[in-house]
């Protein structure tokens, strides 16, 4: 389903249907059924294409926070001065764009996963986060690519004490999602420093051949307002 399509077109996957019909030369009708919603829009546009890509999992059901907290199903204990590459899963939103050359206009966004929010920290100073629970894998797991991505997390403990990590909080501004037909991937780092304070960030580099970078909807909108990394100072 990910990819670029000429319009008019009709795409179906499980209980999801996405359809653009032509009403005249420049007037189109967009309809999406599924993901708990039925959306219809009229589009006035010239020559353009439909692009479906995974996007940052922050807009559904409503954008209220740029942070994503992934809780580990089992805690990870890390010895001092040790590092390891771990694989987690991460929720995805699906973005429907109209593309004219290099320009993309988001016309619809939805998710096929259930959403949940949580608070990182205490009610006075905590940070609201989108919540996701993931198993911890030592190799890239098989995931439902329209629901989840694989998060490749390089975790390292720079402290002189053992650390127990139960969660990772990521700032989704600047989140880079790479995908191909059967795989969606994100790369992030988590460096644990003194006192159990960790810094997390996404990596920008294209991981390997065959993957392409997804359209970043938050990068385009609000990059100047936010830094990309996140400091976890209210517990690991």
């Amino acid at each position: 389903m990910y990819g670029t399509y000429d319009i008019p077109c009709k795409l179906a996957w499980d209980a999801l249907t996405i359809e653009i019909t032509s009403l005249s030369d420049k007037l189109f009708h967009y309809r999406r059924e599924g993901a708990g919603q039925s959306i219809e829009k009229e589009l006035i546009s010239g020559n353009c294409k439909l692009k479906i890509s995974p996007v940052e999992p922050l807009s559904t059901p409503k954008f209220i926070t740029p942070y994503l907290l992934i809780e580990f199903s089992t805690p990870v204990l890390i010895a001092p001065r040790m590092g390891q590459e771990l694989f987690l899963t991460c929720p995805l939103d699906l973005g429907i764009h109209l593309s004219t050359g290099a320009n993309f206009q988001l016309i619809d966004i939805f998710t096929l996963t259930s959403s949940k929010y949580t608070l990182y920290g205490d009610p006075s100073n905590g940070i609201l986060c989108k919540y996701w629970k993931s198993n911890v894998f030592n190799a890239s797991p098989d995931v439902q690519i329209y629901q989840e991505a694989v998060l490749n997390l390089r975790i390292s403990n720079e402290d002189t004490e053992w650390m127990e990590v139960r969660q990772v909080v990521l700032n989704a501004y600047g989140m880079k999602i790479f995908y191909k037909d059967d795989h969606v991937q994100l790369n992030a780092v988590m460096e644990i420093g003194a006192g159990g304070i960790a810094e997390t960030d996404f990596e920008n580099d294209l991981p390997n051949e065959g993957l392409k970078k997804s359209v970043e909807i938050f990068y385009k909108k609000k990059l100047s307002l936010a830094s990309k990394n996140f400091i976890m100072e209210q517990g690991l």
Partner: protein
Amino acid sequence: MNLMTKTLYGDVTLIDLSVAALLILFGILFSKILSIYVRRFLKEKIAKEHVEVIVRVVFYAILGISLLISLPFLGIKLSGFLVTGGVVGIAIGFASQNIVSNLISGIFLIIERPIKIGNSVSIDGTTGVVEDIHIMSTTLRTFEGLFIRIPNQKVFTSNIINYVSNPVRRFEYVIGIRYSDDANRAIELIHELVDAQAFALKKPEPLVFVDQLGDNSVNLMVRIWAPHTEWYALKMEMLWKIKSRLEEEGIEIPFPQRVLWQGKEGTDKSALPFENPILP
């Protein structure tokens, strides 16, 4: 006689004149520098037009003080102003007591910042959204759409509840079920509903527990945390969902009821739930 010590008029010498000029110059310089710092300090905190008013007040206040200090060097005795100034000062003081009080309260509100524009607040029992914070007053738009102006003195000295100061907020329901219903099953159903709600936060954890064995019902307490932006919508949505789901499972919310037993001679006492001393 040295030119500098030569008397120009009265007792005022050229040195006195120079000192007075220096004091005034220093005052101008100091007030300009202070104005820059005040403007920089308040730039992000309050509206631009209010910043300019405060900056101007600071500028002229410093300038006025430096002028007063320099007056004796110009041969003008301040003692002469004391009586007149004192009487005028008292009169102005009484007249402008509220104005000054509101002004100072406004400045403290700007510095302390217990409320911000756009916050949902309750000030001295008045609830609404903060529309603007002026130097003399704060304006609210109540949830009924009314405009209310509250003097800053009242804002500053009243209890303020800021509903959106923290990122999350808790709400609670008391759900009564019949004594014959399975409370554990009811708790399980409510937990399922809460877990399915995106904005019912995972942490702080929602709580559902038997709170009270009431006169007519077993009362379950439901406590849910939600983002402050979604709190009210979720509160409105959840209660009916809980009621409907419990009813689907045959768990009912009972009406208040009282069982009356009428005693009569010859009544079968075993039908009573307790031993009635009135009956023979």
